[in-house]
């Protein structure tokens, strides 16, 4: 009993609506989740970001009660719901594969949770039409799911999940099937919806841009653990590990051995040359291994004749995408770095010898593995 009281106080004082404590889960002896801890504040927008198969969906299913954790606790509004049935949790899910009921029309699908709760016909009708308006599908009430496009189905799935205003909404790649334009539009719409209804969102996406745009906090997942949990600028500008830097910021990972560092800057050497990175309080001594992450837009290229310090290499490939010119430089040790800039003009052609360097302030020290 005492335990429960302290949980309830946590929910009140800290306004933590959902807490995951050391969640572990394995399937057939294979560990899928290996100790997930998370505190979600009321009204927060949390994104789980990570490559395929890292356990995102499993995490959501455990929160929703569709899967039971092997270890750990799920606490919703100060109540331990670890062993509670899914229908007893005030949590709804927008499924990765929509999971619309094929034998019900749009109106019946969206109104399902209200009908289960025995709300009056008029109430249901009103709530359904409000929800459909939110996802901009008014007038589709009588359509069957198989008469809708993929994007429309996804929006119906969203409407169905928000119609009874759950405390926490779990969204498993809700915009995955939409084209870029509709995707952007729906991102804005979802964010607005979340603000207006004050619902807490736990959101899964593969798309780092989407994560950076929408989230209050992002959890970068890898092999069943949160490799980093923080705000968009935390994970983007101050990645803790090389995986986060690569996955979120598409950063270059450069390794070397510390040499000639001072209190503000860590300097390192490797077989291609030298590099610098601002220390930011890291206790790295000369002779130790250094791993640093530099995003491609911060990599400058100049010719070896200029005498600049940096990493020696040759231009391998030039490509142009999304308004950015991408230059891939093969370094002497066989690794490569990417430099990107706006515009399509660049003096370099494949085969040119170059020196790659960067402003130490723009580089961050990271751990190689979590």
């Amino acid at each position, binding site marked *: 009993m005492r335990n429960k009281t302290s949980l309830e106080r946590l929910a009140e004082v800290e306004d933590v609506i959902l807490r995951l404590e050391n969640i572990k889960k394995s399937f057939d002896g294979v560990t899928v989740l290996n100790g997930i801890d998370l505190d979600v504040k009321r009204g927060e927008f949390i994104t789980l970001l990570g490559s395929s198969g890292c356990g995102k969906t499993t995490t959501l299913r455990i929160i929703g009660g569709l899967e039971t954790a092997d270890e750990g606790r799920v606490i919703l509004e100060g109540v331990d719901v670890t062993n509670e049935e899914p229908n007893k949790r005030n949590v709804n899910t927008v499924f990765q594969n*929509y999971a619309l009921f094929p034998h019900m029309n749009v109106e019946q699908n969206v109104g399902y949770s209200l009908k289960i709760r025995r709300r009056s016909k008029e109430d249901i009708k009103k709530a359904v039409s409000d929800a459909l308006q939110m996802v901009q599908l008014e007038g589709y009430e009588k359509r069957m799911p198989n008469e809708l496009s993929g994007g429309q189905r996804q929006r119906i799935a969203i409407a169905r999940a928000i119609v009874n205003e759950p405390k926490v909404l779990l969204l498993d790649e809700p915009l995955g099937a939409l084209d870029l334009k509709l995707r952007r539009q729906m991102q804005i719409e979802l964010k607005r919806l979340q603000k207006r209804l004050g619902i807490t969102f736990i959101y899964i996406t593969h798309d780092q841009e989407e994560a950076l745009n929408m989230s209050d906090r992002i959890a970068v997942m890898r092999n069943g653990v949160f490799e980093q949990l923080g705000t968009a600028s935390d994970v983007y500008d101050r990645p803790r590990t090389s995986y986060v830097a690569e996955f979120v910021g598409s950063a270059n990972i450069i390794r070397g051995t510390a040499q000639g560092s001072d209190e503000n800057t860590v300097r390192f050497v490797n077989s291609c040359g030298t590099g610098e990175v601002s220390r930011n309080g890291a206790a790295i001594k000369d002779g130790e291994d250094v791993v640093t992450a530099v995003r491609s837009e911060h990599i400058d290229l100049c010719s070896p004749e200029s005498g600049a310090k940096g990493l020696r290499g040759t231009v391998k490939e030039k490509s142009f995408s999304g308004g950015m010119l991408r230059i891939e430089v093969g370094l002497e040790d066989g690794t490569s770095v990417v430099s990107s800039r706006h515009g399509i003009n660049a003096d370099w052609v494949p085969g040119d010898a170059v020196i790659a360097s960067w402003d130490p302030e723009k580089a961050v020290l990271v751990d190689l593995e979590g």
Partner: protein
Amino acid sequence: MKKKKAAGNGAFKWFVMPIYLFTLFFVIGPLIYMVILSFLEREETWGVTNTFTFGNYLSIFDPIYLKTFAESLRLALISTVLVAFFGYVFGYFMAKLKPRMRKMMMMLLMIPFWTNSLIRLYGWIIIFRANGTLDSVLMAIGLIKEPLKLLYTYPAVVVGMIYALIPFMILSVYSSVEKMDWHLVEAARDLGATPAKAFWTVTFRLTLPGLLTGIILTFVPSMGLFFIADILGGNKVVLVGNLIQEQLMKVHNWPFAAALSVVLMLIMTVMIWAYRKIAKADELEARL
């Protein structure tokens, strides 16, 4: 299901010709013969005369025969309801088994089909007869004091009907439960449905086509299965099938037997028509 193939090209036509001929000679031909027969008058002892009459149909309205029809319908209804219930439960859980267990159950269901159905029925006689297997077992465990003497009773016939018909129900339900997308049940649970509610609103609705098919596969034959009533019911349970057999083989009243058959067929046709109507109206096959 609109899967009609364009049968226009010549080679295909020649290929299906034997099927048409077969149908003509062995299905449509006898059918027409039977209908004609049912409108003819009976010869005193054997065969028919060429006089047209409605008399055969009118005599069906004799209370004795009407009662036989009612009795047949009642038995078919009772059997179908029981088969639907047990068959659905069985088919449902079979579809939820692990693949290997599923295969084994399927084998167990199919094996009896390799034995003659009459022989299997005689097996039931051994079980049901006074002081037979069932009585001995029940008395041994002390559930009953006196033998039940179930053989030649109504319940024995019902059990025999269920036994003969339930495999069709099981397979029909199984095939539609197997196609279930279980994510839909999770979605229902997630939206607040209890397991029972999720079953009725989602699983049951989506497997209804299988159940309906099973009901047709049970009800229609159960109207005509006269030999089960014969063997397990003695002469206590008389069904339309028994009546037709009797009129044809013993009384030699062919036109009346034909008229009875025509009416029985009409009842079955109406059943199938109603089923298709329901199935279509529901558009149950509509899936994502």
